[in-house]
């Protein structure tokens, strides 16, 4: 067998090869100094990475102080409110309240709705009147600002569409 590639050697070291292939690689590594050296280096790396990633003393102390054995029941996924259910309950409660209250306070509710609608319409009308008044006041105070721009626009339009034949042409005859 030729030297296995890096991936095959890695999978063999991790016991992730099918048994027949693993046996072939093992037999080769026993007789190949290059592959044996690669195996040694990979195992050294394994040890080094394990050591580097292991919890240090401070982290071990921290996890001991967590007491997860007594706090796992209070997971946020269990303790947290379920907003969907809360919203559904609020809607149902509102509907029930309306059903109960409608016969008793029906006429009062109707009057309130009418008053509300009339208030809204009145408010809109007053707003319109006030905004018109405000515009007129602005024009009176500073007519140049309010009138010059529309006049200029009209002039520009007039020049654009003015019949060309009405504009006096320069004579080209001698």
């Amino acid at each position, binding site marked *: 067998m030729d030297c296995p590639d*890096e991936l095959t050697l890695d999978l063999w070291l991790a016991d992730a090869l099918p048994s027949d292939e693993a046996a072939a690689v093992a037999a080769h590594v026993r007789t190949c100094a290059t592959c044996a050296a690669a195996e040694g280096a990979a195992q050294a790396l394994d040890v080094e990475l394990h050591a580097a*990633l292991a919890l240090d003393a401070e982290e071990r102390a921290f996890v001991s102080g967590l007491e997860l054995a007594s706090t796992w029941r209070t997971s946020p996924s269990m303790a947290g409110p379920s907003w969907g259910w809360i919203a559904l309950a609020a809607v149902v409660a509102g509907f029930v309240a309306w059903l109960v209250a409608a016969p008793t306070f029906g006429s009062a509710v109707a009057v309130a709705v009418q008053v509300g609608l009339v208030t809204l319409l009145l408010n809109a009308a007053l707003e319109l009147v006030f905004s018109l008044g405000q515009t007129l006041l602005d024009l009176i105070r500073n007519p140049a600002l309010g009138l010059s721009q529309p006049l200029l626009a009209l002039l520009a339009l007039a020049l654009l569409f003015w019949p060309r034949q009405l504009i006096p042409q320069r004579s080209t005859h001698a």
Partner: protein
Amino acid sequence: MAITELSLDSTQHLVQRSRAGDESAFAALVEAHQSAVFGTVLRLVYDREVAAEVSNRAFFKAYEHLASFDESRPLRAWLLRIAANEALNELRSRRRDSAHTLGGAEAEIELEQISGAPDPGEVVSRRERSDEIRDAVSRLPEPQRVAVVLRYFADLAYGDIAELTQQSVNNVGVTLLRARERLRRDLERQGVATDGLP
């Protein structure tokens, strides 16, 4: 006294009791696996408070889904897969840089001195090298970092990593090879010796 290891029989017994609703039995399982679960999550999210919260969530989820646990397989790998999944969900939902929690070198050195480590200078340099490697791991792209943490911290088999990350065993091997290659280049740039790295 903290439980650090449970025999297969006692694990199976505790799992059966937990399935029957005995929360104290599950608490014993939590105590036995809390370091592995917390450590795996911490190495992925790099924030102790978040790691504690995610570990809690992972244990709660495990308790909820204990009925689906296949007793013929190791509980540790199953718990770590749930924890890693929760950590990845957390990372996806946050997507923000977290403060690294790589401190504690002094405490480690003190502890090793008390327990009779031979040479303080050697301890310091070993600690510094470990910190450099951890920093380099934290700079890996997420799929490579996940594979490295699951392999070299959680000690999961390639098959378990493949199942968790939804890829083939060969792809896990390729991801780890690339991760080690990237670590070597990164550490060389930092001026750290890389004898063991490919």
